[in-house]
């Protein structure tokens, strides 16, 4: 099952490589991984999307927690939570028909066209993974995708709960 893990860790050189090394060393799956410093610059916040049964997940959480740099890890999957991912996608927009279609689909998904070239549009969209997948499918039906980049998801529990020190 797909799980979203939120990790708070020391913002130090080598911290990221320890997490990545751990996942490969123990054959844990990484679907996506995002990391950046938090409002407190001494801390990094990481979101990992992974897959595994309960036993594997228990090991992932424990093994990550065991790393000296890690302050906290929580599995937010089963809680009410917000999950967002950013997509940038460059599509062919050769003629009026494809231009209108891309614009229409982008509007439906509440995306933005953020750049245009001679024959291309670049679109930005945020949402959860499912929404982004649906958007890509819709685009593929109407035009050709030239390039796409996804940020991987970031996540946070809803309400008063917070991951902090």
């Amino acid at each position, binding site marked *: 099952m797909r799980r979203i893990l939120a990790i708070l860790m020391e913002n130090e050189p080598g911290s990221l*490589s320890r997490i990545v090394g751990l996942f490969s060393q123990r054959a844990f799956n990484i679907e996506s991984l995002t990391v950046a410093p938090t409002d407190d610059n001494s801390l990094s916040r990481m979101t990992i999307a992974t897959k595994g049964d309960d036993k594997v997940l228990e090991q992932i959480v424990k093994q990550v927690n065991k790393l000296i740099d890690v302050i906290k890890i929580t599995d937010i999957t089963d809680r009410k939570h917000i999950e967002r991912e950013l997509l940038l996608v460059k599509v062919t927009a050769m003629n009026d028909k494809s231009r209108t279609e891309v614009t229409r689909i982008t509007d439906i998904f509440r995306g933005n066209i953020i750049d245009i070239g001679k024959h291309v549009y670049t679109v930005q969209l945020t949402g959860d993974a499912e929404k982004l997948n649906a958007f890509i499918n819709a685009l593929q039906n109407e035009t050709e995708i030239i390039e796409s980049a996804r940020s991987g998801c970031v996540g946070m529990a809803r309400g008063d709960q917070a991951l902090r020190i």
Partner: protein
Amino acid sequence: MTTELFTGAEMVVKSLSALKVKYIFGYPGGSVLDIYDAIFQQDEIEHILVRHEQAATHMADGYTRATGEVGVVLATSGPGATNCVTGIATAYMDSIPMVVLAGQVATSLIGNDAFQETDIVGCTRPIIKHSFSCRSLADIPVAISKAFYIASTGRPGPVVVELPKDILIPQNKGPFNIETDIKIRSYNPNIKGHPKQIKKAAQTISNAKRLVVYSGGGIVLSDASELLTKLVETLKAPITNTLMGLGGISGTHKQFIGMLGMHGSLEANKSMANADVILALGARFDDRVTNNVEKFCPNATIVHVDIDPTSISKTINAHIPIVGLVDVVMQQLLDELTDINFSPDEAALSQWWQQINLWRNVKSISYEQDENEKIKPQRVVEALYKITEGDAYVCSDVGQHQMFAAQYYPFAKPRQWINSGGAGTMGFGLPAAMGVKLAFPDKHVICITGDGSIQMNIQELSTCSQYKLPVVIVTLNNRSLGMVRQWQDMVYGGRHSSSYMESLPDFVKVAEAYGHVGIQIDSLDELEEKLTQAFNIKDRLVFVDVMVDEKEHVYPMQIRTGAIDEMWLKKGVKS
């Protein structure tokens, strides 16, 4: 008043002094010459020069296993540091606290494939508890004191500290401050077991009809053997030890039913298989214990006490997990048992012991010695036990001899048995024994080894001459990689692919070449006399080369893919 300024190299040595380090085990080279210069100019810490950096790590490791003090290793960048990798992995697998100071090229050169540059932090990442890359003078004391703290607390393990050349040289100086009372906000190992879990565990234990205590290296590491003995005597239950846990309770204690696992006793493995409650203390259900996990002790409720949460329910699901220091948790358990007026169910207990005694009567740890035939390796270990009155430190290498040592030398105390259980590193024995001898010069220190293993660090005979380390090396010489050969006999149709040592040296001459005493034993009638002679030589290293029966196998042995108690008792005889 101006504050005194120090070079990084001086800071390294001052930090180690502040942490009460007595020995550094190491080998010099370009990137760490400044540290060597600083060591030269003080006399608080002694540097032990080995002949290969791997031996420095094992020697530090042996020193630590015997004393409990953190071992310190110093190696130069590149090949010096990579030579430490096996020793670091060995310490990591057995949770041994160690601090490895590794030189590095100057910070300006890092990443340039400079001369003797290796990313040692990267190389060791999967086999360390933590590592520090120092990049400035001020980092040095912080990294070293944190390294000691991390290495020695929680589940202990090795920590690497990388020291680039440019922060060690005399041109750079800075003020020296060291904080030895360390707090790390992201690192707070659990100490006490959760009270609710303790209550549950005590209840479960009280209701048990067939309880087994299964204890491991955690007991040895936390010096908890007295408490363990008290707990076991309160419970009146049988106790088995892992290979790493031997000596956790006296090997001659009447409740001790032997080592468990692959080459454990039948009674230990049978008791586990038939237990209704297993109390696991500082042990980690290693695959060399469990055999096939699918068939593992189906009827047992498992109480698992360990300092490391990742060890709990990793291979075997624990019904009552307790995270904490094993000595603290055992005290909590004892207190709780007192509170609930624990008294064991005597009827059930006597039935249980009757059953166990039937298994004991099989005498699974036994061998046959024909007085006119070649010496059986087991007999050598028994003779060593007798001659040293069970009071020697026994360090072993890896192979059949290691198992014979574990089976036939009952260890009275923790830290007396020193072996590479987790990693199974051949070449560990001699340098480990040297580390022990350095710490306890007046004790008998034996290295039980094989003709294969001893050659993996035999160059250390030279270090032994230099520092006068009169260990007794006993090679159970079967002219083969015995353990490999045994598997080939049992699993590979007797095809002995590369398990012979066809060009063995004359070990007596090798010993003599390094200035030691060499003794060869060929027949049973001279065994005890010559071994006694070896132990009577106190001031010189004695290398005893014992020709043993090369056909001997280690029994009992778990049958692959079987349950924990499915064993070969001897050739062709199943449990």
